């Protein structure tokens, strides 16, 4: 173990049934917080895409229930007040990543934090953050591509009290909202987040009413301790001691011609401590893809991965923090220095997950997950319509979920939990565009015994002049396959002008003018495959051919399955598989796809940006 044993380890003055009840109630409360925000917020990003993250912490600010870890101590440190200055009815708000150690990692994420009191004693905190539609800055949506400092990414609120002892500071909120392009949305969404934290306050107070304050506090300790015990078991069982495992992968670029950007992770265990070291990761970049990775959040991600893979019933919380030791090199893309721009940190965040799951795939026998579509593609279309009304649409898109142990990846699904596609009928009713196509990209997931999920194609026809901004990744690097599974296909974006000319766009662009009648074809990347494709059940391949999810050509070439009239030709398939086995190279543990070497890729990425800029963008 690294430091001291945490103070919650030991005996707890709460009987096990009461403990189970309190743990259940807190788990339900977390869901309730989400429901409150989803139903009362106005932004489609929050209401349709569940982009908000609740947590309940103990009086020391340790997350007892939630999934992104807690940075409550840092937030209070960076605020003008101390813990003792907190009073019932206070709510703290901040959207400055540098003030909360990256607990929110770009400016559109607004975090609200409510201390919870019982009998005048602090018994915990509830917190929730959500993605606002706009917080000002140089582009609609506040996620510019061409920015080099956070000052270009909108209005930042340091940790300040939005409610003081229950009294709402409307001037503060108006000042903030005034600096955004959609002040009504900002106000409504922030109030919705506050309502979510209030729901948790009420439930925690009810638990104190029911079981007594001391029992509640003891139960929080016990819940942390229980999770810690469970994690110690998981570490002993699944993380081998001694050997060091490393993995490297890339984010394409920073949207300003710099890339590829390397992420390097090393994992090893000594005793009960698991070391996770990002040394070897590239330095921070000028553009907006830097990811201020919160150390505690990364411990949480690591623990959550182990839990979801091996013991999904274990509660996630800050109980296991001392079991992980993380090294984040200062000034790297995962620990950039103020005032680096952070707006488009999602490719880096997603790649960090890819790298984490790849390293675990290496170190855990018999458990592998392939690479994913690897970002959270998002599109903004904004302008002023012919009647003079401003419009601003923001949409998140999805791609191929990687093949998983024991199962195929999912086509066009969300890597991020609980997100949903915005209905085409919503977009067409409220914004000047039509959705001509929303379909699965056949053959874009990696082949394997378990197939990687395919990406999707979405085709928009714009009905008013305006401008589009989007961020995507995996246009130059491939979601890798694992254990003999093959890599997936990359993402692509094409603008089709009214005269039929086609323009390929890089995966990160800002304020590209579009005219009424222009079409955007947005195609996301797939997920990698797992295991030898020649081991896949031919009948399953044939079913997917009939469904249009795999082409006959891919069936023959990738899977060695010969389809005649929609059915498997067994003799031909056997022959074809034998031929492929004879001629192919040994299967690699990872298939990264046909990547050029680093220097060539770097030159390609720079050239692509120069070419795009030369078109006047």
């Amino acid at each position, binding site marked *: 173990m690294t430091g001291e044993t945490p103070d919650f380890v030991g005996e707890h003055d709460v009987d*096990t*049934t009461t*403990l*189970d009840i309190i743990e*259940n*109630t807190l788990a*339900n409360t977390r869901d*309730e917080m989400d429901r409150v925000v989803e*139903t*009362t917020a*106005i932004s489609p990003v929050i*209401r*349709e895409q569940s982009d908000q993250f609740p947590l309940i912490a103990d009086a020391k600010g340790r997350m007892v229930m939630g999934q992104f870890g807690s940075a409550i101590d840092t937030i209070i440190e960076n605020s003008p007040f101390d813990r003792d200055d907190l009073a019932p009815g206070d709510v703290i708000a901040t959207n400055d990543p540098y003030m909360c150690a990256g607990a929110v990692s770009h400016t559109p994420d607004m975090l609200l934090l409510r201390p919870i009191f019982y009998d005048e004693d602090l018994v915990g905190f509830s917190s929730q953050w959500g993605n606002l539609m706009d917080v000002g800055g140089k582009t609609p949506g506040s996620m510019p591509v061409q920015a080099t400092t956070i000052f270009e990414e909108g209005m930042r609120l340091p940790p300040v009290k939005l409610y003081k002892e229950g009294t709402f500071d409307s001037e503060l909120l108006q000042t903030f909202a005034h600096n955004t392009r959609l002040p009504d949305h900002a106000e*409504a969404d922030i*109030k*919705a987040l506050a*309502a979510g934290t209030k*729901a948790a306050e009420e439930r925690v107070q009810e638990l104190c009413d029911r079981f007594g304050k001391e029992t509640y506090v003891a139960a929080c300790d016990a819940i942390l301790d*229980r999770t810690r015990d*469970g994690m110690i*078991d998981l570490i002993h069982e699944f993380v081998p001691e001694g050997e060091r495992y490393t993995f490297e992968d890339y984010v394409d670029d920073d949207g300003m011609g710099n890339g590829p950007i390397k992420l390097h992770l090393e994992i090893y265990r000594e005793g009960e401590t698991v070391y996770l070291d990002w040394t070897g990761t590239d330095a921070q970049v000028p553009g907006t893809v830097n990811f201020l990775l919160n150390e505690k959040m990364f411990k949480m991600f690591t623990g*959550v*991965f182990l839990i*979801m*893979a091996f*013991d999904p*019933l*274990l509660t*996630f919380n800050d109980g296991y923090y001392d079991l992980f030791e993380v090294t984040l090199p200062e000034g790297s893309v995962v620990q950039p220095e103020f005032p680096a721009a952070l707006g488009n940190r999602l490719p880096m965040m997603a790649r960090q997950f890819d790298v984490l799951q790849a390293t675990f795939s290496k170190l855990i026998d018999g458990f592998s*997950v392939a690479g994913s579509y690897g970002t959270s593609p998002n599109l903004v279309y904004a302008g002023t319509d012919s009647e003079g009304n401003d419009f601003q649409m923001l949409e998140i898109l999805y791609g191929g*979920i990687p093949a*998983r*142990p024991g199962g195929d990846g*999912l*086509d*066009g*699904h*969300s*890597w*991020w*939990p*609980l*997100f*949903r596609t915005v*209905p085409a*009928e*919503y977009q*067409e*009713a409220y914004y000047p565009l*039509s*959705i*001509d*196509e*929303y*379909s*699965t990209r056949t053959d874009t997931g990696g082949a394997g015994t378990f197939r990687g999920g395919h990406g999707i194609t979405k*085709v928009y026809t714009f009905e008013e002049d305006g401008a589009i901004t989007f961020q995507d990744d995996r246009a130059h690097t491939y979601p890798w396959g694992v254990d003999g599974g093959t890599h997936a296909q990359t993402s692509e974006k094409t603008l089709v002008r009214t005269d039929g000319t086609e323009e390929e766009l890089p995966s990160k662009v800002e304020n590209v003018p579009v005219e009424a009648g222009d079409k955007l074809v947005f195609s996301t990347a797939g997920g990698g495959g797992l295991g030898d494709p020649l081991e896949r059940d031919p009948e399953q391949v044939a079913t997917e051919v*009939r*469904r*249009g999810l795999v082409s006959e050509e891919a069936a023959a070439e990738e899977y060695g399955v010969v389809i005649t009239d929609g059915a498997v030709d067994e003799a031909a398939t056997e022959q074809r598989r034998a031929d492929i086995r004879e001629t192919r190279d040994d299967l690699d543990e990872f298939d990264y796809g046909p990547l050029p070497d680093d220097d060539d890729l770097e030159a390609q990425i720079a050239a692509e940006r120069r070419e795009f800029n030369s078109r006047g963008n």
Partner: protein
Amino acid sequence: MTYNLGVDVGGTFTDVIVFDEETNELTIDKVLSTPANPSEGVLRGIEEATAKADTSVEELDLLFHGTTVVTNMLLEETGSRVGLITSAGHEDILHLARAWTPGPLYGWIGMEKPDPLADLVDTRGVAGKINSPAGEETQPLDEAAVRTAVQELQAAGVEAVTVALLNSYLNPAHEERVREIIEAEAPGLPVSISSDIVPEYGEYERTLTTVINDYARPQVIQYLDDLDASLEDAGSTAKMNVVRSDGGLMSSTAAKRRPVELALSGPSGGVVGAATIASKKGVPDVLTLDMGGTSTDVSLVEDGTPGTTRQTKVGYREFKSRSVDVNTVGAGGGSIARVQLSGALQVGPESAGADPGPACYGQGGEEPTVTDANVVLGRIPPMVQLGGKMDLDHEAAREAISGIAQQRDSTVEEAAQAILDIVNENMYGALRVVSVERGYDPRDFGLVAFGGAGPMHANALVDVMGADPLIIPPGPGVMSAFGFLTSDVQNEFSETYLETDQDVDGADVHAEFQALQSRAVDWLESEGVTAEDHGFEYYADCRYFRQDIQMSIPVDIDNLRSDAGLAEIKDDFEARHDRQFGFSLDAPLEIANLRVIGKGSIEGVSIEATEPGDSDPSDAQVDTNEVYFDGDYYDTPIYDRTELAPGNEIAGPAIVVEDDSTIIVQPAYTARVDRYANLDISRGDGR
């Protein structure tokens, strides 16, 4: 002499209840269901129950029929092969399923995603475009492509076809034309169009709901045709009413067109019955608890009216159909208890089911269940035979629970008590969702408990929740069938409106409501309800402009003739929003949908009062048992419910047994038989 009959077709048992209009007597019967050919079991139940009530099928006047046939078809994926016609470019709509993966982070690693109910192989896209929000045709329908699609689908062997095109909620012209073409090309093939089934925005949910309709339709048509025919053969002239998910009734003909409305037909009956019984005795605000073998359904009844929802969930699939707002949790008598690696005790959602069932059934089950915990603690007296059919194996129950006790280092009694505490907590969580989370305080409500296991657990629940009184109706095991008898003919007519109070006035909204009402009148007439029995309710589903919430606000349409009516709707909405979420906004009111519910009242049953007599229950006491409550064994008297009379009072601890359930009265509680033969249980001496 005339009789009315309610029949509730479950997965295992079919419950029947017969009401004699002359004597007000109720006769209860239970037979085994016949899932392979469901109408067979229904007919057998009807024949057996009428015989038991000394009457015959010929003398039945009204039939009320609820069924889990559709529910089970969805859960077990045993419906028909459905073809799907979508807008070109949107064929993958069900496959992509709005991209949703479960929480938490990495939830996708373990996600199990069932295949769409309409296979991609049987899905065709056709060109043609209705724009939005104008609802105008901007690209004509490709009729040749429709014909080709229909021919291909028919040749492939689909048994029904769904048509679901983009923006059809604004203008159904293309969908209607596709239906015409299908009817011409493939006469007799059932077709549903999405604008008819759910005329509302949201293409995924509308498509899914309509596909579910067609998935169930061929078998429901067969089932209801068979049942109608065999009843006719048996000499019945009774009018058949089918119970919808929202607790209302519709004819067989209507049910065959819209079987998706039957998805929660079964559970709705219990809620409607509980609402009726509670209102009758003057407790119009109640929570309901229907606890069975594998799951528990809870709901909230306000002012005698069950809450309804427009989002119905069966298994993985959540679709748009109006249903009684029941929240289901995997907690039942058969729920299995397990100790997790971390030491946490978990009860359910896994269930021992009916086979092998709990260990105490002696059918080879070894897993410790909730029922076994009740047996260990003496809460199910040895004299009780579950379902009247089997003896309890106390040793096996104790053996099963002792495994849990060893893992938790506790006595067997403590382990059993912990199992009950956890399962009760899970039900309490479900009750909180329908009450506290929606801004209701459970202490302002009574609790009506039924289902085989509900009366055994309900007293412990009211103790935690503070609900009062606890009401155990007569025949708690057949509550759904009873509830059907209390239902009215009912259907909902809705449309997406999406207008704000800045863009329309009261007269506009009034005109829309009248148009919906005239559709409701047509339907009621087609269901054979005469004009004097028609009733209407009007609702506006409101939110702040662009919110996702839809709060259903009851509307007095006469007031809409002036603009005060619109302001009244906004005031009501803001008050509810503030109560539930603690804030209001300075934003326009958006009316997302308008809905008219057309009702025709039917008298299926009447509940008569008996004057209460003596409070002494001692004549009904049949035995005494040692029962464990909160750490101690108590000498607990056992009463036979059939021997209890209105006015009798029982001090807890006590157990009241009857044919289909066991009622627990905890220490410090008193039970009293009311004028309608309900057992009311309250804290203290009950006065």
